[in-house]
């Protein structure tokens, strides 16, 4: 049964955690994800969950404790942002390579240097190659829905990988929105029990985890991990289909908005998609064939699917809410552009880095991009492919 509530993105995630009632939650506060362990600690204090809450002394330890718990045979969750995720960096690789389907609620925030508490994607983009599945949300509803899908994806025997459920710090984490919740019984049924095949606490068959892996085995283990990430794509779609049956809400690897006949398109991630859609609606009224793709799943990267969806586009802008200091473009730009390489003809592509440290993005910004794309599509000069948007000159 679905019912409506008014929740912030953080509360929606905490509520999803409460409905799932995981075995272990280990977390350390950091803005803007702090509320998630706060809400959860209250559920524990009020006896509303059966979870062991481990209030660790750092994010390095929260990920380490989650690894220990998941390896022991439990379902473990955590939440973090920004520097907290950066502090986990080493352990993120350990979690993924040990094939432990931990779920992490990532509330995206700029990385320090200088310190800034507002939203961009530099934290999760910085850790994109750690071997975690990454799923992004545009709004509170998607954050909640994605969290409910995380465990059925990550825990599947063909996958066995940890999952990050990302949402935009403050923009969705602290904004109240009307969202539709699934009743707890349906959540429990949908998410199911975690019954791993092997785990540390299994009586019959002791398990050793975290070996010193010599050159004669390391590569084979990495290939297995890579294969699991390939399998994840199909599993994500399977789980989305099951989720649609229960909720009526449809999810894929990405969302296509007005893409069917689009000549001009954007690819972007997260809450900015809402603003961009408003710009698309205006342009459509003006007769401009504008569309956009909001990427939901960044890892595994849906390269073939994106190429298919973008093959008819004449000019494309790829927007990164993260710098990678390659002096060529952000991570999303590099990967999307590479995905289009074998198309013939290929869309002409430009990249923008925008919204760093919470810099606002408005429909006017998107209109300006579409105007440039229209010019490129009409045979105009491509101009610089790597630019920044929204900064003061």
């Amino acid at each position, binding site marked *: 049964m679905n019912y409506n509530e008014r929740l912030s993105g953080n509360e929606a995630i905490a509520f999803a955690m409460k409905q799932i009632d995981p075995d272990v939650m280990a977390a350390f506060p950091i803005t803007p994800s702090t509320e998630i362990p706060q809400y959860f600690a209250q559920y524990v204090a009020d006896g509303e969950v059966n979870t062991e809450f481990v209030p660790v002394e750092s994010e*390095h330890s929260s990920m380490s404790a989650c690894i*220990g718990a998941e390896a022991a045979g439990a379902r473990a969750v955590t939440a973090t942002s920004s520097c907290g995720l950066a502090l986990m960096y080493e352990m993120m690789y350990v979690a993924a390579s040990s094939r432990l389907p931990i779920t992490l609620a990532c509330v995206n925030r700029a990385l320090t240097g200088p310190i800034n508490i507002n939203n961009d994607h530099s934290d999760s983009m910085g850790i994109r190659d750690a071997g975690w599945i990454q799923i992004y949300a545009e709004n509170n509803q998607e954050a909640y829905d994605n969290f409910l899908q995380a465990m059925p994806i990550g825990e599947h025997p063909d996958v066995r990988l940890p999952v990050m459920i990302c949402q935009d710090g403050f923009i969705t984490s602290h904004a109240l929105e009307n969202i539709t919740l699934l009743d707890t019984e349906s959540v429990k049924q949908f998410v199911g029990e975690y019954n791993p095949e092997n785990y*540390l606490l299994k009586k019959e068959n002791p398990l050793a985890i975290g070996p010193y892996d010599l050159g004669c*085995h390391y590569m084979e283990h990495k290939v297995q991990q890579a294969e699991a990430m390939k399998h994840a794509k199909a599993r994500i779609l399977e789980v989305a289909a099951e989720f649609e049956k229960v909720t009526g809400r449809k999810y894929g690897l990405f969302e296509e908005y007005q893409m069917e006949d689009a000549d001009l398109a954007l690819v972007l991630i997260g809450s900015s998609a809402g603003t961009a859609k408003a710009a698309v609606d205006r342009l459509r009224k003006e007769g401009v064939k504008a569309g956009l793709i909001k990427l939901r799943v960044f890892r595994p990267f849906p390269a073939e699917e994106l190429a298919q969806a973008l093959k008819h586009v004449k000019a494309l802008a790829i927007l990164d809410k993260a710098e990678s200091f390659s002096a060529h473009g952000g991570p999303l730009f590099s990967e999307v552009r590479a995905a289009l390489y074998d198309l013939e003809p290929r869309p002409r592509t430009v990249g923008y880095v925008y919204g760093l440290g919470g810099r606002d993005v408005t429909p006017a910004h998107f209109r300006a991009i579409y105007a440039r794309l229209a010019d490129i599509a009409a045979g105009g000069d491509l101009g610089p492919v790597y630019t920044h948007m929204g900064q003061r000159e």
Partner: protein
Amino acid sequence: MERTYHFKHTLEKKERFAPGHRLCAGCGAGIAVRGVLRALREEDRAVVGNATGCLEVSSFLYPYTAYEDSYIHTAFESAGASLSGVEAAYNALKRKGKIDGTVKFITFGGDGGTYDIGFQSLSGAMERGHDLTYVCYDNEAYMNTGIQRSSSTPRFARATTSPVGTAVPGKSQNKKNLTDIIAAHNVPYVAQTTFIGNFRDLYTKAKKAIYTPGPSFLNVMAPCPRGWEYPTEKLPEICRLAVETCVWPLFEVENGVWRLSYAPKKKLPVEDYLKMQGRFRHMFKPGNEWMIEAVQQSVDENWDKLLNKCNTNL
């Protein structure tokens, strides 16, 4: 001391740390693990944790494990936190009726993983009160990477990042007193031990540590023949001299009560301990007598402080 300790019967228990591991001959780490795991009741299971270090890379090389029990290694600085997670999972699954039988949680780390890089996660695990035992096998330097100094390396000892040169005579700083620091966490059981005689001290302390509810900490001096530069067969003698000179006193702190486990009849001079080890060789060169005097003075002061805490007058 446990009255029921019987060396022969203890040795007849099934080994939980199998031979075939790749630790060096004369290494204290393997002796510490064997000795501590021997204190488990045979009917109890355990999950053994491990910080990255010599022990880890020598006892679990894929696909071979030396542990009869379940084992987890995650990283260098995370042994305390990882085992906290395992223990939390046990509590949750036990409560849900998914696990039967008793499982104990014991983690091993060298002084690098314990005194230094893993100090924070150890402190966190102790403070939160997990029912686990953290065992430090203290060999007084980062041996796995090739004998670099740690905060546990004693003053004047030669290490590759505190070399003996013409201007600096080995490590400049005193050894950190980690056992006291963990005792200051007010956990139920903290003890310091090493390999002495028939292993009664190690066994009884390990047993108390493992079976005292709540967090416990064992600091086990575990010499390293390569780093300390001694012939492998001299390990028991070095341990004995560490205790007889009061360089490494044996004591325990049980629910805040400090107790001396052993008082030498006649405290031996520190030279007896130092001269057996190549890492202190330069201290015996003419003109360097002041170094030995400084060590003696420091050992005497620490011994007096310990006697005071233990309320013992000799």
